[in-house]
């Protein structure tokens, strides 16, 4: 991988400036036509304010909109998140052996030879390949303790040697953040409930990974744990909605008795939806982030012919 060439960082900057400037002018004119905080509340918002307490027993109207009035929209969005996580897992997955299917590089080489037999790797590619060979040669068995890893190696370090201060700080902060994240969803005071709570919970895994390295989190942060959990969250969301359809009249209707407001069970099925969303978002974000972090150095292989790397 090479950095941007200094003289080509911008591609036709004048065109980008003209287009962005024109867009800005249009948006600025439109901005003055938007309501200046004086418009009446739309009908759907008034509806949400009206039904939040009687129908759901929740005082948090934004959560009522997320999981009640516009619950179907949230349902769809959940599965959009799931689709994105599947896409990331698929793209980040390690290369499989090509013993059965067509070897792309060798098939492409024949065609390349027919169209342009004289093409050789340019200087940049040779440099990249040389660096890659160097990386392969310098690979050593990983040290038992991540702190013993030498810094400044060409490959990504397994764990940054964080100081004891950072590690103690992370150990103290992690349980507090975990409790805070679950509290956000459980008591339903937070706009969105499970969404911010799930993001905060995913943050715990990332905090521990950043401070203590992969070994500290690998018992929990692994596909065999996270992927079933994420699908369990998705299944719970479907189940909560479907039971509403069976016991009530519509998908997502409340089917639990309403507890007194501002208690843990105040929202009826809204709280169940929120809890399932917490699992879904927390595991989804963690899977996506760790899939990205775990992407190996898989460069296009040379398949034996050293000449293209050396020319």
């Amino acid at each position, binding site marked *: 991988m090479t950095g941007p060439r200094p003289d080509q960082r911008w*591609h036709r900057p004048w065109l980008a400036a003209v287009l*962005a400037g024109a867009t*800005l002018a249009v948006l600025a004119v439109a901005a003055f036509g938007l309501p200046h905080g004086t418009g009446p509340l739309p009908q759907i918002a008034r509806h949400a304010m009206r039904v939040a307490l009687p129908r759901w027993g929740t005082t948090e109207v934004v959560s009522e909109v997320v999981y009640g009035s516009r619950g179907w929209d949230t349902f769809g969005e959940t599965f959009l998140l799931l689709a994105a996580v599947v896409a990331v897992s698929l793209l980040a997955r390690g290369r499989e052996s090509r013993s059965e299917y067509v070897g792309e590089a060798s098939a492409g080489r024949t065609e390349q030879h027919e169209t342009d037999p004289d093409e050789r790797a340019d200087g940049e590619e040779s440099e990249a390949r040389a660096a890659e060979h160097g990386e392969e040669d310098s690979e050593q068995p990983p040290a038992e303790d991540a702190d013993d890893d030498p810094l400044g190696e060409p490959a990504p370090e397994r764990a940054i040697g964080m100081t004891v201060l950072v590690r103690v700080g992370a150990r103290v902060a992690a349980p507090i953040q975990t409790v805070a994240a679950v509290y956000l969803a459980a008591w339903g005071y937070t706009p969105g409930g499970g969404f911010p709570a799930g993001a905060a919970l995913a943050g715990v895994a990332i905090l521990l990974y950043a401070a203590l390295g992969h070994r500290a989190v690998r018992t929990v942060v692994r596909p065999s744990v996270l992927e079933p959990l994420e699908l369990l969250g998705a299944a719970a969301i479907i189940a909560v909605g479907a039971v509403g359809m069976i016991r009530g009249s519509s998908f997502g209707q409340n089917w639990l008795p309403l507890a007194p407001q501002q208690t843990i069970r105040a929202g009826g099925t809204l709280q169940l939806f929120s809890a399932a969303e917490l699992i879904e978002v927390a595991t989804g974000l963690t899977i996506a982030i760790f899939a990205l972090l775990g992407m190996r150095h898989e460069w296009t292989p040379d398949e034996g012919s050293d000449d293209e790397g050396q020319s």
Partner: protein
Amino acid sequence: MIVANYLAAAVLFCLGLACVLGRRNLVKIVMGLSLMESSTYLLLVSLAYRNKATAPVLADRPSHTSERDLVHGNVSDPVLQNFCITAVVIGVAVTAVFLTVVVRVAQHYRSTDADDIRELRG
């Protein structure tokens, strides 16, 4: 002065647009897209604003307001705040997919310069 927020959102959007249109580095293009997404969050939350209104929460309301006041519009718009939450989650998901594609492109082409990614060029 909520117009200032709208204008800030517009400027943020156009900065992102300029980045996407003019930059060649794929990572910076993804950053530009994220900037454009952020501008929509600011716009949605600003649109939810109502003068002298409270948050759309039915508990612990200020002493000078009644529940009737809240229901009849003296609160910021909860639906637009919901849109903002939705937009944040979708933004995260889309950015994650983009970044994964960028890593794979970098590994395949050994470059993050959009100008080098031209194998599909007819």
